[in-house]
């Protein structure tokens, strides 16, 4: 319960259609930390992120910066935690500027319109993410990497200090993956953001995360530094994968090896 914890999940259970998705998750993320949740398909990674973002009712299980999430009003919650979904909807015809302005929704009174301050905040985010040249472009016409930057810009425009990224790089080539994650890391350091991400590429995940949580069958199978979590034994057990773990400069590198 220390004041420095951004996310505190205690004994989180989520059941859908009588199927348990999450069965007693504990997770603490301290302010400024980058925690990446990994796990095989169906392990409950996205569900955990949804619960932390307040999109799933989980009474008593989730606290954000010390406050039970269910006691936050939606608008207040949206000023604390911003989510970039796995595949955000791209509304047809919407220009980049308008899309990023949607991030100011928690500051705009219901039925009201955005103020000059909102516009200024958005322009600041756009220039920080090198998107100023795109403001009039339609979001749908941008490339995958550019779009991902715009999605991030919208989340940053929310002014939240907790950033939830669900598979932020799954649609990107390897160069754009690094570009986006470097950007997130830089923003995190500059603005003391806390990042909780889910990722599939384990090597890249390990290079950017301070800590990792391995989910399997709705439970925390392992948690710790990338070196503690990304081991041949754990990956073999929970991913049923045959891999070699090579020590890299910024963390373990995972190399898939064909089984004999």
């Amino acid at each position, binding site marked *: 319960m220390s004041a420095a914890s951004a996310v505190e999940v205690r004994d989180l259970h989520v059941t859908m259609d009588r199927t348990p998705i999450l069965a007693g998750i504990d997770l603490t993320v301290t302010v400024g930390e980058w925690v990446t949740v990994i796990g095989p398909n169906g392990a409950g990674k996205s569900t955990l992120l949804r619960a932390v973002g307040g999109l799933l009712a989980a009474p008593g299980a989730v606290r954000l910066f010390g406050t039970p999430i269910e006691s936050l009003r939606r608008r207040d919650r949206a000023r604390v935690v911003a*989510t970039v979904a796995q595949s955000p909807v791209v509304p047809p015809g919407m220009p980049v500027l308008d899309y990023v302005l949607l991030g100011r929704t928690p500051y705009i009174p219901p039925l009201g319109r*955005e103020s000059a301050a909102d516009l200024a905040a958005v*322009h600041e985010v756009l220039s920080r993410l090198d998107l100023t040249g795109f403001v009039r472009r339609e979001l749908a016409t941008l490339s995958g990497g550019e779009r991902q930057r715009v*999605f991030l810009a919208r989340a940053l425009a929310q002014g939240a200090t907790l950033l939830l990224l669900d598979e932020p790089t799954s649609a990107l080539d390897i160069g754009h993956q690094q570009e986006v994650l470097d950007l997130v890391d830089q923003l995190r350091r500059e603005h003391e953001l806390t990042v909780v991400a889910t990722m599939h590429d384990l090597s890249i995940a390990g290079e950017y995360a301070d800590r990792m949580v391995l989910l399997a069958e709705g439970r925390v199978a392992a948690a710790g530094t990338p070196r503690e979590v990304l081991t041949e034994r754990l990956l073999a057990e929970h991913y049923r994968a045959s891999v070699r773990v090579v020590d890299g400069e910024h963390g373990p590198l995972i190399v898939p090896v064909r089984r004999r």
Partner: protein
Amino acid sequence: MTRVAPVAPGASPVRPAETATPSRPAGLRPRWLVAGVVAVLVALVAGVSLGPVTIPPGSVAAELLNLLPGVHLESGLNEREIAIVTELRLPRVVLGLLVGGMLALAGGCYQGVFRNPLADPYLLGVAAGAGVAVTAVIALGGAGTEGTLTGLPLTIPLAAFIGSLSAVALTYLLGAAGGRSRSPAMLILAGVAVSAFLSAGQTYLLQRNADSIQAVYSWLLGRLATAGWHDVLLVLPYAVLTAVVVLLHGRELDVLSVGDDEASSLGLHPQRSRYLLIAAASLGTAAAVSATGLIGFVGIIVPHTVRLLAGSSYRVILPLSLLFGAAFLALTDVAARTVAAPAEIPIGVVTALLGGPFFVLILRTARRVLT
């Protein structure tokens, strides 16, 4: 998944010209608002001046301005012509404006609420509910007055109003009965089921009362013919309420366009906004339908035309749909009553005949894409 679209050649990441002046969001441009108001005024003057007795547009404009307090202009019209303007044509044109505006506004609203370009104001059963109720009144109640519409001046609008709102309520109850899995798609499917059920009931009633088929069909095809100020006053309060509620939610509809999850992570209550907007749009549609019957097509083509030409934000689509929908229906009515004069073509037929090709033209020439 974010699809990777090709970047236009030569599109550099930073354009110095745009960094200099902070950009505004793509809101409603004043010239479009002016164009919409002008369209409504043109429709108003044309609608009043054209007919069996043609009255010069200048005189019509003068006479219309005379309706404003404190204005006294010489229109050069005699008593009879003034009566034609103010008592016969003006209420009909105003009703056309109101109904056209309502249908287009409700259509645009439904398309946003359901994130579905095919949504129209009749999606949730308004048409079928009104249809079965009006058929019941004409077929069962109207037998004593030989099935004529004039025999039942009040009950048909009332039946249509109650029928359409009941159908929407039924759709809502069925669609919401899914509990956890309440989604826009559930509501649309419930609307399909309710519409099919009520249409079957209507068909059965018609089969059993074949003598009322013509009266029912003339209502189904839509009509502005019997409009007096009375009809206008019946529709007006609902139209105002609907317009205020829907127009205030333009920005929320823009937020809803990114999906329910993201809208709620941005601090909205998507479900709450959706039901409020459905209720408002259905009320306006029911009022329009009760006054003029089922006029199709306006609710689809007007919002899409606006979207293609003026912008895709609902803060643009909604007010412009209201204005251009109003102008469109009033002008359509001019065509409906002059093309084959003295006979009148059902207005629902004209909206489709004129609107269809026009819409195809817009679709083929507009820069923007729909999906």
